[in-house]
């Protein structure tokens, strides 16, 4: 992980001019300023075009239906909170119960998968190369299998153990499926960077494996835990097909399936639609903005190790 911060420093050093260069360089610098501001403007234009759909949805959440239709690109005027209030006052409590259910599923999945995956990864790292190779190959499969391929057998399995259409069923299938593979690979990759001496020293002191894992390994792999937490949290939160089929309609919806099931009838009432979307999206977006640093670092560490 420590290697990740370094490149940024290197980039920061990049625009700083070397004072030893001559006057010719100064005129080039002036041209450089013009070029840089042109670059800045171009970058902003491209970025803004790219995020227009987000702007439409966010501004639409605070506009009237009429203004959305007549001036889709304008700022909200009059500014209205009706859409937000309306979404929160729906008789089916779509937003409130959906968010609550999503939080339940996401948190329970993470609370189970993080200790399971980190302990398993530590255990795997300590195995003989043959066993390690076999286990990692088996876990690699989970990174690739499209969730649709295993969905119906999972439903049948849950039926046979009496967990069909239940939160425990959904949570267990999250914990045992491809997400576990992702977490294990991330931890195993990260554990390679942990110096073996630290673990060996603790062993010599007579510490048990559980204690070593929890008091020594877990703090060392904290960056990996952050990555696992952020990514799996996001994926489980945004998951659609599993809650749609495994959880079903009777136990209440997660926010994602809830929107899918109930928004169809208001799909042309953009004001209402955007109000609901705004509230549904706000938690992952704010979560992303808050954890942005870890998010992007995690992405790179996960990626470069995969």
């Amino acid at each position, binding site marked *: 992980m420590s290697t990740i911060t370094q*490149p*940024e420093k290197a*980039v*920061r*050093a*990049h625009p700083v001019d070397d004072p030893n260069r001559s006057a010719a360089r100064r005129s080039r610098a002036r041209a450089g300023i013009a070029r840089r501001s042109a670059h800045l403007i171009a*970058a*902003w234009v*491209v*970025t803004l075009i*790219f*995020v227009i*759909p987000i702007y*439409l949805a966010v501004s639409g959440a605070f506009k009237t239906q009429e203004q959305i*239709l007549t001036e*889709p*690109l304008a700022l909200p005027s009059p500014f209205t909170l009706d859409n937000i209030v309306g979404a929160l006052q729906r008789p089916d409590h779509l937003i409130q119960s959906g968010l609550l259910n999503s939080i339940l599923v996401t948190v329970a999945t993470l609370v189970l998968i993080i200790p*399971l995956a980190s*302990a*398993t990864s530590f*255990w795997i790292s300590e195995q003989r190369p043959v066993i390690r190779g076999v286990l990692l190959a*088996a876990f690699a499969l989970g990174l*690739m299998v*499209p969730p*649709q*391929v*295993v969905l*119906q*057998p999972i439903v*049948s*399995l849950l039926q046979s153990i009496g967990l069909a259409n239940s939160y425990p069923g959904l949570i*267990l299938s999250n914990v*045992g*499926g*491809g997400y*576990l*593979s992702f977490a294990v690979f991330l931890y195993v990759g990260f554990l390679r960077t942990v110096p073996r001496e630290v673990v060996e020293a603790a*062993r010599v002191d007579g510490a048990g*494996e*559980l204690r070593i*894992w929890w008091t020594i390994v877990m703090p060392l792999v904290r960056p990996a835990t952050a990555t696992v937490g952020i990514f799996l949290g996001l994926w489980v939160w*945004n998951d*659609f*097909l599993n809650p749609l*089929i495994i959880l079903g309609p009777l136990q209440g919806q997660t926010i*994602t399936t809830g*929107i*899918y099931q109930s928004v169809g009838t208001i799909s042309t009432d*953009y004001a209402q*639609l*955007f109000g609901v*979307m705004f509230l549904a*999206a706000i938690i992952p*977006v704010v979560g*992303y*903005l808050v954890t*942005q640093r870890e998010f*992007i670092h995690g992405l790179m560490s996960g*990626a*470069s190790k995969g």
Partner: protein
Amino acid sequence: MSTRQRSRWGLAPIAGIAIILYAAFLLWPLVSSFVTSFTNSSPLKATSSFVGADNYVELFQDPRLYRTLGFTLVVVVFVTVVSNALGLLFALLLNSPSRNYRVMRTLVFIPQVLSGVIVAFIWRSVLNQNGLLNSTLQSMGLTDEAVSWLGTPELATFSICVVVSWMTIAFSTVVYTASLQSVPSELYEAARVDGAGALSRFRNVTFPMIAPGVTISVTLCLITTLKLYDIIAVLTGGGPANSTQSLAFFLVEVAFTENRFGYSSAIAMFLLLLTAVVAYSSTGLLRRREAHL
């Protein structure tokens, strides 16, 4: 000896739980799906029996397979190419430590954290007949009639490609941005001193350094598009005339709308094989290229 033993058994119970869960929810379903693919199992029928390779024979004669496969490949290729090309461009454009560029990078990444359902609903409001795109085009006088963005097989396919790319571009951008930032600036300086032009600097300095990023970004695009489901479900429902069904969508339809588990398992095996081939060949190919550079 004693330490070795401890190290082997101390965490074994927890690892055992994880392995059992993984076996139950990933490995067993694969086996079970493979076995089911040789039966005519369906919850709409009273009995189920072994039918040999019938499902596979039917699958390879089913025009739906070729239509969904064709659509899937179009989306996979379009999305992978577009999101990597534009992602790299974005990364080059936005690769600067200043505050402005940081804000832009933050904005560009937002689509990636939204769920496919929300993205598809937003785009549906943009693309449908009275949608915001058509009303904008009409008010600017660019078209007289509403364009049927989701209504013809070609345009609907194109629309789905655009929407999926919109999500994956964000991801590619971040991967490439991070790759670019790992290029030591001394390398550029050295190349500049050697008199290398911008293009040659990109080819000889930047590109080799971001090659691992290419592998990651391309592979993830491939895997993401091969399992594409939610955007299709919301944006077109697979229509018009089933022209925008991905293989994964087809599989879910057969499993959960036609309730033919035997047949859907055969489709599942096919999708699995396709994903395996694509994933391994792409990582293999790209890795080899990385080594060459």
